[in-house]
């Protein structure tokens, strides 16, 4: 990492003075570390997207189809007619600039085209040129410009430099949502085959095997059994991890990172222990083995294609309702898109916790609840025996993941859980949490190593707030409920705020949970010795 990126004290020297040249002259330099590589042709072909070919963003010739301009402009027209959001957001921005320093990529890079307003103007300028009378007549004077290859390259660079986190949309007086603009921008780029591998490969894998990494059913089963074995070793409790079990009450869908990546894995152990203790009759599905949905980062159609398996598996397995694990963008899809795209879920029942009897009426249409909602309810009803001192080796802060915060409003449930399972919990500064939370800088498919410098820049605002609570309150663990956070915040924090680890909320639940018939717990779920044991050993 150190050889690729400059030192933190160099990277933080950010020049916010805009360049002299007019922003309407397109100019993009594909500098190593600041962009993502193109999608491999096999992945583009597998999902049936247009123009699969070998190419890279730094190539001069992008091998576009001969009539690429017509394709893009037709695509724009189509989407202007289909999405009120898109048409409206092309028309009503007043360029007040309130969004400018709300974007983590702008704050971290100083590149004015990372201001949400200009990111949108990249496409608005083309909209004006081809779809408004003033733009056609007056050109640049009306803020209009031709769609050239250089403009397209700029779109690629900046629409893959937006994590669709929606923070700017919180501050915009008209609610203009750059995530919406970026999503449409990426759809247009996809029409001429300009996509990135970090998005398309997981999407293709997910389409084929059911999950991002391409884990096949037997591999899925192995992973779950391995986890159950690990858990038995740590806690002395043998928890079941049922797969494809017909007639179970609940289908449990998690992001696949939970069973193949670290520190996600410890969250999985936490889930298994919790659901065992709660006695929930549930099942995983080896086909719906991914809740994450990289369709969100390529096209609306792809969202629907990848999401369909959730309801279809719920129907096939005959469950009553669906439970979802810790994942950010997965929950944007489950909350804001799934029911509309693949519903109605009239074959399911309104979720009811068999332990507390609580009816989750707020999910009466989708029939799917977040595990934090499920757990918070258990804790509130005193159904769990918790020993928060088992997390005493952690001083915890909570990072709101963008999508659960700004596309759902899941703010208090995880906090309630954390306060119940940890003794030391501190909030980061006010303007950096809840709906104003700052992105990890690697969401929306940008969490790849070749893009490291830009990720470190984009993650700087988040990390700066973490560093603040590290120094002020001694925070050494950041809890979150997003798989991309768990994957990308560890290297980010190691760079900007060393000494702070990353964990899922349910890892901490698993640590604190006192399970019936458990053996004496000497380590946490990571296998690290517990604090009181350590101290007891020293005193003895």
């Amino acid at each position, binding site marked *: 990492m150190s050889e690729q990126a400059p030192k933190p004290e160099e990277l933080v020297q950010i020049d916010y003075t805009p360049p002299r040249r007019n922003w309407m002259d397109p100019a993009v330099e594909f500098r190593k570390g600041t962009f993502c590589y193109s999608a491999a042709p096999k992945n583009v072909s597998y999902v049936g997207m247009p123009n699969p070919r070998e190419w890279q963003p730094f190539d001069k010739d992008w091998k576009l189809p001969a009539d690429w301009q017509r394709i893009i402009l037709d695509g724009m027209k189509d989407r202007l007619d289909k999405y009120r959001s898109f048409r409206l957001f092309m028309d009503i921005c007043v360029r007040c600039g309130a969004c400018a320093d709300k974007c983590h990529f702008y704050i971290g890079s100083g590149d004015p085209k990372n201001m949400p307003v200009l990111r949108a103007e990249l496409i608005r300028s083309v909209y004006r040129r081809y779809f408004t009378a003033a733009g056609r007549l007056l050109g640049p004077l009306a803020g209009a410009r031709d769609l050239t290859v250089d403009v397209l390259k700029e779109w690629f660079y900046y629409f893959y430099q937006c994590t669709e986190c929606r923070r700017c949309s919180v501050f915009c007086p008209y609610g203009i949502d750059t995530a919406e603009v970026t999503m449409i921008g990426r759809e247009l780029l996809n029409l001429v085959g300009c996509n990135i591998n970090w998005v398309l490969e997981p999407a293709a894998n997910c389409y084929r095997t059911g999950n991002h990494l391409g884990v096949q059913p037997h591999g899925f089963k*192995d992973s779950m059994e391995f986890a159950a074995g690990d858990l038995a070793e740590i806690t002395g409790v043998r928890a079941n991890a049922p797969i494809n079990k017909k007639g179970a009450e609940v289908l449990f869908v998690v992001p696949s990172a939970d069973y193949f990546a670290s520190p996600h894995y410890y969250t999985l152990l936490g889930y298994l222990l919790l659901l065992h203790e709660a006695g929930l009759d549930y099942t995983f599905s080896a086909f719906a083995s991914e809740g994450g949905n990289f369709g969100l980062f390529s096209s609306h159609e792809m969202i629907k294609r990848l999401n369909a398996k959730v309801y279809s598996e719920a129907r096939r397995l005959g469950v009553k309702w669906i439970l979802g694990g810790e994942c950010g963008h997965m929950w944007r899809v489950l909350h804001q898109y799934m029911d509309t795209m693949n519903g109605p879920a009239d074959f399911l029942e309104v979720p009811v916790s068999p332990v507390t009897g609580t009816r989750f009426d707020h999910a009466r249409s989708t029939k799917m609840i977040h595990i934090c909602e499920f757990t918070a309810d258990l804790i509130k009803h005193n159904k769990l025996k918790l020993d928060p001192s088992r997390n005493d080796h952690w001083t915890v802060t909570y990072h709101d993941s963008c999508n659960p915060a700004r596309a759902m409003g899941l703010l208090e449930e995880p906090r309630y859980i954390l306060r119940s399972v940890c003794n030391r919990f501190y909030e980061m500064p006010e303007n950096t949490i809840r709906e104003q939370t700052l992105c990890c800088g690697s969401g929306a498919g940008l969490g790849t190593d070749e893009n490291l410098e830009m990720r470190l820049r984009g993650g700087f605002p988040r990390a700066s707030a973490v560093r603040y609570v590290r120094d002020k309150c001694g925070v050494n663990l950041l809890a979150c409920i997003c798989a991309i956070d768990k994957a990308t915040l560890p290297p980010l924090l190691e760079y900007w705020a060393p000494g702070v680890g990353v964990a899922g909320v349910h890892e901490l639940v698993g640590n604190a949970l006192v399970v019936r018939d458990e053996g004496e717990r000497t380590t946490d779920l990571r296998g690290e010795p517990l604090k009181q044991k350590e101290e007891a050993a020293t005193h003895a």
Partner: protein
Amino acid sequence: MYIWHSLAAVIALAALGYLGGSVGALRTPFGIILPYAAITVFLAGLAWRVIRWARSPVPFRIPTTCGQQRSLAWIRCNRLDNPHTTLGVLGRMALEILLFRSLFRNTSAEIGADQRLTHSEQKFLWLGALAFHWSFLVIFLRHLRFFLDPVPGCVMALHRLDGFFQIGAPVLYATDVVILVALAYLLWRRIKDARVRYISLASDYFALFLLAGVAVAGVLMRYLTKVDILEIKRLAMGLVTFTPVVPDRAGPLFFVHLLLVSALLAWFPFSKLMHMAGVFLSPTRNLANNNRMKRHINPWNYPVPLHTYEEWEHEFRDKMVAAGLPLDKE
């Protein structure tokens, strides 16, 4: 650089208005035909734009949630910033439209000496915008006394309230001062803040200069040249009752005012000023976050290619058998 283009355009328009008021033969086209044309363009253009927006459907329910969701009964939800009912949405929209709720959140991010990023409260843009819009609204409503006969009590009350300080003769309106100060601030900010200057287009300056032109012309003729109010009321009443009379005794400054207002009206539907109507339609603000409670219908939802469970089981059959996973099709 667009600043000068825009300023020149507004000065040219003002000069044209002055000419219209100075040459007898031009009084009819400038005093009667132009205002009618402008208001026609305004109304038709506004309707056309709003209908165009409304014709594009809202395929997904995508509110930006800015507070706690409605979930468990014992967790207090935020009914205004994250509404889950229609009433809540109305409240959110009212806060947004009347008080600029989102802009009120504005912060300013800065990297300090210790390389720490701080986000501090920044209310000036909100204050400037609010001052401008509200004073504009009050001035607009005050002007109704030219167009209505008899003048409704509420308009007169507003007129008295606005002149509450009783300074000078004719009495100085508070809103006249506020709107000029607010416009000056907004213009100053656009020019002085390098970031905002960088993103500004010609139309951004044009809007400010045009509004300022309207206000300045109005202020000058009220306080300086002391225009003949009765004559103007006669013209205004003539226009609204479709029995227009050519204004003979209104000075050229009035024609400047009238022309700039006409320009504003005619340009409005084709400009960013359409945010006035657009803010009501913004799907991130005007929808309830009741996504999991009530299914949202996408009118163009279409079938997509899928990889079905059957195909999946078929592809991985042998491996599933070896792993002891149940099969649907033995």
